[in-house]
């Protein structure tokens, strides 16, 4: 067994100690252990395994799963450019290129002196103020060439992050339209007082009357979920707030977490009251780690005010507290069963359902997983009653919805609308013109073409978890679909065959077309892959992965067709390039040392 240098061991033991040596804390331990040296050397993993009395293979399995955990050295400055389509539209590639050139390194590689590494990462939720990046986990938005120059300089000078200009790290809310939720100015504890008055049963009935449905995507009736968990056997029951917000183009939870944290925590406590739960988790995506200190502060304040802890608001038998768990770069952990695995300190692999979390969730206990916005909305119901809540929106979609608007428009940001608002109205409000398409609901959502802009945001028409990305007439919808395909291939957890291999194959086909090797036959193969992914995948990630391709192939087919170089067949790789290495080794460049990449040229 290799020995660790003395200081890290002491610090590492401190981390392990703080987490009580619980294996369920493994992911949290790994995140903090990484802070010590910037990455996770093999002896560190061994030490953690020994201290937690778990197999090392399990520790390595977890460390290898999450994008933000590194088992290979990375730079002391670890720069990750956000790579959502909206970042791409704002020129992130050029900016990354510029930074790489200034610092003399290649993307994905570590500089020789170990100073810096630069790579891309999935959407960081800064689409309203992109292009965005994370430096050692800290979010920076509104990148420009000027900022890039300054950043290069500060990295070269090895200036500590704390001494970088504070305005770099300012992430604005950009709230553009408020409705009932964002206008709510609630004194912490007011909603709780109201529901304690109602009693657990009465409160659940109120939620039922409100017709509240989940804001995280699936639109499941919240009261039904809560009632199931309440009726399930097993103690203690768990409330989880899903703040993983990984869906590209979604950033509304970021704003709620930043400026409405009390509503979220109060909502979790309201859920605990209904369900009879005593433990709560907020699962915060790693990209939002910068919000952690302020969220912890809100929790501390609430504990002090008697809104968390034992006998909440002096109510006997109302005990509930909340811990914040960090994610570490894995979109799939937004899927509720993968999230629960991650909370248990494991790889974020979706579970087989049934059993559903409401009966067997975290550590086998009844668990409610709700989206940030869903939970915040329950405060409205507690204060104004279920009927009032149900009165806005549409019959099947009660209340309002927060939209995260980005892309080609004058005023990107957060818009709150009652359900039922037509796409066209939204486009008008945010100052979009010449709109070619809108991607609603993120990469997993739907791509709407101009003839669909009279459709409405609602579960029964165009459902959405909140993303709303706008593409004007200058955009190529093939590029959009391709960016999303890359996203899914990168984020596939790899558990099931169709998604693990299918997303990579699909990426291969999209790249083949993009690189000028497309053939008509590929479109048929793409169709076939789309269907298999949709049908056979284990979880929603795989089954949604082909959505952007299916939609754009239907609505923007010429964007694909114009990329075809053959109506029959083309190899996926460049034949002439495949000879390059041999040319170099033999120092040949005669005609026989080349191949025509496209067969037509040979005839």
């Amino acid at each position, binding site marked *: 067994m*290799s020995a660790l240098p003395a200081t890290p061991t002491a610090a590492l033991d401190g981390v392990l100690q703080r987490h009580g040596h619980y294996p369920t804390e493994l992911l949290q331990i790994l995140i903090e252990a990484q802070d010590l040296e910037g990455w996770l050397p093999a002896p560190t993993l061994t030490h953690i395994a020994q201290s937690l009395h778990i*197999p090392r*293979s399990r520790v390595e399995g977890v460390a*290898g799963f999450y994008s933000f955990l590194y088992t290979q050295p990375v730079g002391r400055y670890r720069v990750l450019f956000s790579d959502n389509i909206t970042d791409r539209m704002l020129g992130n590639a050029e900016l990354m290129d510029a930074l790489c050139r200034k610092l003399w390194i290649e993307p994905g590689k570590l500089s020789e002196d170990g100073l810096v590494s630069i790579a891309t990462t999935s959407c960081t939720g800064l689409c309203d103020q992109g292009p965005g990046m994370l430096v050692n986990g800290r979010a920076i938005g509104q990148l420009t060439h000027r900022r890039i120059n300054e950043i290069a300089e500060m990295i070269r000078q090895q200036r500590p992050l704390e001494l970088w200009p504070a305005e770099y790290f300012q992430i604005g809310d950009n709230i553009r339209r408020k409705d009932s939720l964002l206008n709510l100015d609630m004194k912490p504890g007011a909603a709780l007082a109201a529901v304690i008055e109602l009693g657990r049963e009465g409160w659940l009935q109120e939620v039922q009357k409100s017709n509240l449905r989940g804001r995280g995507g699936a639109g499941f009736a919240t009261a039904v979920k809560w009632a199931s968990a309440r009726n399930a056997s097993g103690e203690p029951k768990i409330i989880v707030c899903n703040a993983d917000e990984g869906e590209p183009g979604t950033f509304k939870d970021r704003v709620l977490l930043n400026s409405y944290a009390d509503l979220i925590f109060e909502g979790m406590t309201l859920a605990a009251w209904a369900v009879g739960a005593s433990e709560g988790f907020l699962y915060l995506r790693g990209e939002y780690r910068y919000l952690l200190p302020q969220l912890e502060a809100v929790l501390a304040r609430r504990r002090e005010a008697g809104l968390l802890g034992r006998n909440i608001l002096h109510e006997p038998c109302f005990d509930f507290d909340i811990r914040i768990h960090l994610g570490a770069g894995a979109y799939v952990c937004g899927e509720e069963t993968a999230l629960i695995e991650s909370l248990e300190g494991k790889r974020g692999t979706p579970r087989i359902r049934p059993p559903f979390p409401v009966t067997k969730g975290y550590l086998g206990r009844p668990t409610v997983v709700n989206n940030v916005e869903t939970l915040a909305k329950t405060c409205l119901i507690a204060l104004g009653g279920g009927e009032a809540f149900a009165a806005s929106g549409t019959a099947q979609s009660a209340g309002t919805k927060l939209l995260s608007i980005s892309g080609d428009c004058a005023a990107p940001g957060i818009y709150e609308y009652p359900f039922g608002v037509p796409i066209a109205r939204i486009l008008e409000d945010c100052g979009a013109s010449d709109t070619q398409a809108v991607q609603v609901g993120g990469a997993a959502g739907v791509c709407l073409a101009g003839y669909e802009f009279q459709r409405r945001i609602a579960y029964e028409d165009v459902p959405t978890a909140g993303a709303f990305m706008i593409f004007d007439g200058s955009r190529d919808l093939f590029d959009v679909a391709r960016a999303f395909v890359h996203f899914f291939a990168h984020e596939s*957890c*790899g558990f*099931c065959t169709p998604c693990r291999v299918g997303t990579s*194959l699909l990426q291969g086909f999209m790249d083949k077309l993009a690189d000028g090797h497309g053939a008509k036959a590929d479109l048929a193969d793409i169709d076939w892959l789309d269907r298999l992914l949709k049908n*056979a995948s284990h979880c929603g990630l795989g089954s949604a992965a082909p959505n952007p391709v299916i939609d754009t192939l239907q609505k923007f087919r010429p964007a694909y067709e114009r990329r075809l170089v053959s109506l029959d067949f083309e190899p996926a790789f460049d034949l002439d390039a495949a000879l390059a290495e041999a040319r170099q080794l033999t120092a040949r460049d005669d005609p026989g040392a080349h191949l025509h990449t496209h067969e037509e040229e040979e005839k």
Partner: protein
Amino acid sequence: MTKQFLLDGQPVPFEDGQTILEAARKAGHYIPSLCWHQDFPPHGSCKLCIVKAAGRHVSACATPAKEGWEVESNTPEMNGERRGLLQMLFVEGNHFCPSCEKSGNCELQALGYEYEMLTPRFRHFFPERPVDASHPDMLLDFNRCIFCELCVRASRDVDGKSVFALTGRGIHKHLTVNAESGRLADTNFSKDDLAARICPVGVILPKGRGFAVPIGERTFDTETIRSKTLKEEES
């Protein structure tokens, strides 16, 4: 009265809690599987057992049967999807059957025959997966791993050793062993472990056994995986 569902139009009785796959096999109907094993809870990863139940695609190995369901399994559509999944498994690894010791005894290959997979169809990934020959008795040829996690589960839940685990994510997911060196020789793995016998493909192989049984006389040279599976079910 016992409950039943219809599998390709034929009634299949089942008991509460039984999965579609278990009930079907018990009644003498074949539904393929790769990651499923009767001694372990369902895994649900390979998706070879995919069926359409009441119009929805589900994994037969992980889905409890329901009264009155109409389940489609042995249809051109489902078998086509299975063939597609097999093709995916073949192209993501390096499967060169002619030089694989497991050939003829391999479940992946046998399913390829069963579902008449004539070509891997897609672009081969040709991943780089070095072999681990460090252990005195056993060889690990990662090139053929299909990530069924049977070795992981057997070693953890039966052998009590956790010799194997998966790490990495997505297409970069791979098998690892319980040693800082990454070498099987540095684990407490033994050739007598259940994990040493459970791999359905040619990853975990005993050394020095080689091509003991000649090609042409191996398990699936003489019997299809369908008939072998159903026979085992009866006994």
